[in-house]
């Protein structure tokens, strides 16, 4: 086990696991942002493990997660907009989570790029980093917008909070 694998495992334990607890408990306003954090951190874990196993080919998993993770978050926002509007998440917590995501992405992607050295592999890593940052930005915007738009949105048929 080398330093990169250890870092990946540590991130899995200290980053992903708490985020997973957030996804599994509480209201939608807590689960949805936590889901975004979980996918972002897991993508970073994949990047670290790829470096630790010395297998650049494993980077593709992080690449796929960096585009599908935000899609998953947006999907929850779209279909649970009513619940988010009923109990909007705290503004400050949301911003803190986003900033935390940016910091984590930078803290993982930049050293990995430095280790990869200039070349297409480095550009690929940076693209994944940018996609992750963009995804976490848009997830926050979407949660925000869903909470702000409140109830009047969509036909009654669009709602799902019918029996609570």
């Amino acid at each position, binding site marked *: 086990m080398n330093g990169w694998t250890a870092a990946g495992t540590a991130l899995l334990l200290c980053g992903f696991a708490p985020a997973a607890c957030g996804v599994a408990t509480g209201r939608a306003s807590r689960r949805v942002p936590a889901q975004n954090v979980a996918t972002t951190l897991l993508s970073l874990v994949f990047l670290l493990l790829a470096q630790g196993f010395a297998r650049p080919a*494993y980077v593709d998993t992080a690449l*796929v997660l960096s585009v*599908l993770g935000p*899609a998953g978050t947006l999907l929850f926002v779209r279909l649970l907009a009513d619940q988010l509007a009923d109990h909007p998440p705290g503004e400050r917590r949301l911003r803190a989570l986003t900033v935390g995501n940016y910091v984590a992405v930078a803290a993982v992607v930049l050293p990995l790029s430095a280790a990869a050295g200039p070349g297409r592999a480095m550009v690929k890593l940076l693209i994944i980093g940018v996609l992750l940052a963009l995804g976490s930005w*848009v997830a926050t915007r979407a949660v925000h917008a869903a909470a702000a738009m409140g109830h009047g949105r*969509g036909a009654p048929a669009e709602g799902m909070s019918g029996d609570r």
Partner: protein
Amino acid sequence: MTMRLRMWVLALGGLGVAVLYVLACLDLPSFGGHRHPYGDRAVRAALARHTANTISSVNFDQRALDTLGEESILFGSVLGTVVLLRQTRDEDRQQPEPARVAPSVRRYALFALPVTLLIGLYIVAHGQLSPGGGFQGGVVVATSLHLLYIAVDYRALERIRPLGLYEVADAAGEAAYVLVGAAALPAGWAFLGNFLPYGTFNTLASGGTVPLLNAAIGVEVAAGVVVLLARFLDQAVEIVSTDEEAEGRA
């Protein structure tokens, strides 16, 4: 059956399964062992056929017939879903109201859709080289189109999704797989034999029929998932039974 009785039956069955499972596990090779006779042979066969990704070689060359079976299950379940979720006589369509979405989210979707689509195509096309293949890439391609529903609007999705075309593509993917398999017959090979030249190791054209079968599966999975989700979206967003509709108007 009362809840109590059911729990007893469940506990008994669970216990039986657990005992048998433990007995079976005692005879399994220990975790992380070094004896993998089949795996080693599969790796050797894949290398002999110039396929860099052994897993793709197993799926689309060494056990291609098995994958044809799996593909048929996929085709069958898509077909079953289409039949089960069709619009019945006592149901009507209701135009869904446009959803209001933040402009920044919409812009992200418009940016992410082609990027996700390209990544999906990359995963399909490089299935015989790097991790990936038709199964994974197909799902990514299908998901990319649904970004339009997720982040924009159902009607926007409907505009770029000519459903008939995807139904045809689904069938065409399955047919292409069988045809590539049958093409081996005139060349004097068995069905689904790898009759094409193997090419240079670790280039896009390597692996003989593997990239072709991979692409066929990619088309089928992508089209199948799009058709599947279209039916679910229809049911959840558009189709209402007549009593529901009357209630909505009242």
